[in-house]
C-alpha cells in the first residue's frame, strides 16, 4: 500500500520535474494515437459502406429496346433464355426481372420532386435482369460473358462504379496508418529518451535506494508509471482530437445532401466506445513496453 503511494508520487514528481519534455512526449503520443484512431474509423466506415452497398449492388443486364418495350414479366424467348442461362450460372446467387414500367416507378420514387424527372420518359429506361452474385467481386465475369449477347443492351457491374469511392477511403486509411506508424516511432523514441533523462536526473536517489535494499518495484516502477501516464494521457488527448475532428470536419464533409445517403456517418459512439478504449489500451501498452525495454537496456537495476 505504502509502496503504491511511493511509486505514484515519484512518477508524478518525475513528470513535473521535466514539464516541457513530458508535454512533448504526451502530444507526440496523442498525435500518433489520433492517427491510429482516424485509420480505425476509416476502416469502420469502409466496412459499413461496403455492407450497405454490397447488399444492394448487383450486375445489371439491361435488355435492348424491342425486349424492353414488349416484355412486362420476362416471358419473351430472349428474356427467358437469358434468365435461364444466368440462373444456371454457378457464379450467380439470384436473378430478378425489372420491367420498364417498374424501373420508371422506382425512378419516380428516388427523384421525387427533382427537376431531372421532366427529362425522363419511361421509353428511355431499359428493362433489366438484376443479377446478385455469390461472390460480389466476380462481376467482371458476368460483364464479359453477357455483353453483346442478342437482346442485351449493356451489362453494368454496379460494384465497379463505387470502387473509386472505396479506393479513396482505402487510401485515407493507409495514409492514417502510415502517419500513425511514423508518429508512433517518434513517440517511442521520446518516451525512451525521457525515461533515460529521468533516470539520469534521479541517479543519486536510485543509487541510495539500491544501496539500502529497495526492490525493483521502488527503483524502476516509477519510470514505468511515468510512461504509462504518458500513454494514457496521450490516448485521452487523441480521443478529444477525434471528437473535435468528427464534429467539425467529418460531419461537415459528409453532411452534404448527396453524400449523407451514400456514406454512413461516423457516430459519436464509434469514437467513444470503439476507438477510445482501444487507443487507451494501445497507448498504455506501447508506453509500458518502451519503458520496460529502456530500463532493461539503459538503466542498471
Amino acid at each position: 500500500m505504502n509502496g503504491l503511494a511511493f511509486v505514484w508520487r515519484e512518477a508524478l514528481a518525475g513528470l513535473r520535474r521535466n514539464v516541457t519534455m513530458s508535454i512533448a512526449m504526451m502530444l507526440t503520443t496523442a498525435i500518433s494515437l489520433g492517427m491510429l484512431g482516424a485509420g480505425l474509423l476509416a476502416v469502420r466506415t469502409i466496412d459499413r459502406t461496403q455492407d450497405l452497398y454490397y447488399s444492394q449492388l448487383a450486375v445489371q443486364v439491361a435488355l435492348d429496346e424491342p425486349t424492353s418495350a414488349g416484355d412486362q414479366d420476362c416471358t419473351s424467348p430472349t428474356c427467358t433464355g437469358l434468365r435461364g442461362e444466368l440462373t444456371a450460372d454457378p457464379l450467380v446467387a439470384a436473378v430478378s426481372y425489372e420491367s420498364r414500367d417498374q424501373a420508371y416507378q422506382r425512378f419516380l420514387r428516388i427523384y421525387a420532386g427533382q427537376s431531372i424527372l421532366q427529362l425522363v420518359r419511361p421509353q428511355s429506361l431499359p428493362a433489366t435482369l438484376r443479377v446478385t452474385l455469390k461472390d460480389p467481386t466476380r462481376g467482371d465475369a458476368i460483364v464479359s460473358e453477357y455483353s453483346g449477347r442478342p437482346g442485351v443492351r449493356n451489362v453494368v457491374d454496379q460494384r465497379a462504379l463505387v470502387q473509386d469511392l472505396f479506393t479513396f477511403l482505402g487510401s485515407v486509411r493507409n495514409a492514417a496508418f502510415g502517419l500513425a506508424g511514423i508518429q508512433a516511432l517518434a513517440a517511442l523514441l521520446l518516451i525512451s529518451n525521457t525515461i533515460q533523462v529521468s533516470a539520469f536526473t534521479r541517479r543519486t536517489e536510485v543509487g541510495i535506494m539500491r544501496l539500502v535494499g529497495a526492490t525493483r518495484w521502488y527503483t524502476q516502477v516509477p519510470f514505468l508509471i511515468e510512461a504509462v501516464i504518458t500513454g494514457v494521457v496521450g490516448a485521452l488527448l487523441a480521443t478529444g482530437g477525434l471528437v473535435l475532428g468528427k464534429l467539425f470536419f467529418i460531419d461537415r464533409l459528409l453532411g452534404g445532401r448527396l453524400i449523407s445517403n451514400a456514406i454512413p456517418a461516423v457516430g459519436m459512439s464509434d469514437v467513444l466506445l470503439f476507438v477510445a478504449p482501444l487507443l487507451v489500451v494501445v497507448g498504455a501498452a506501447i508506453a509500458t513496453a518502451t519503458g520496460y525495454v529502456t530500463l532493461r537496456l539503459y538503466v542498471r537495476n
Partner: protein
Amino acid sequence: MLRLEHVTKLYPTSVRPALDDVSMDVDRGEFVFLIGPSGSGKSTLLRLLLREESPSSGNVFVANWNVARLPNRKVPKLRQRMGCVFQDFRLLGDRTVAENVAFALEVTGKSDHTIRTVVPEMLELVGLDGKGERMPAELSGGEAQRVAIARALANRPLVLLADEPTGNLDPETSDDIMLLLDRINRTGTTVVMATHDRQIVDAMRRRVVELHLGKLARDDARGVYGATR
C-alpha cells in the same frame, strides 16, 4: 558472519586483480579495520560483500547468504541487512534529515507507523535529536555523517560497512564518529571499516586487516596502522 574464500576480483578493464586470492572470516560483533594503500582493494572488498560486484572466483558469504550466487531478486534482502556509509555521506539534498533517514525505511516497504517510531529513535542514537527538520546543506560534515549512519542503521542491519567514513572530516569530528561507531559495535552490530587514518586505527586497537596490491598482507587481532612498514 562474513567469510571470503579465496576471493579474486579482476575488473574487465584492468590487468592486475583488485583482489587476489583473499580469504578471511569476520565473526558476529567484531570490529574490523580494513587498511592498505590507495588501490589495494579495500572498496572492492566492501562492494563484493554488498553484491555491487561479483568475484571472478572464490566465494563470499554474509550470514547465511552465498552472496556471489544470490539470484538478483534476493539481492535487496541482503542489502537491507547491511548498512553502509561513505566518505561523501550520500544524502539527498532535497530532503530533510528526518526524511533522509525515513527514505531507507520507505523504499524497503516499512509501514508509516514503523517509520514514525524508528526515525526519531535513530536520530537520538546518533545524537541528532532536534535536528530532524534541517536540510543536509545546513549540517556540518560530522552531522551529515551521523545522518548517513542513522539511515544505514534504520533497517537494523547485521553488519555496518563503512568506506572511509572519516575521510572528509577533521580529526576531532572523526573521533566523535569513531566513538559512535564503537558504541554501535558494542550493541552487537558487526562493523567493517576501510580507512587511511593512522591515528584512528592506532587509538582503537581493534582487529586490523591490511591489503597490499589486492593481496592479504596482515591480519592482526589488536593491531596498529603501521606495523609492517
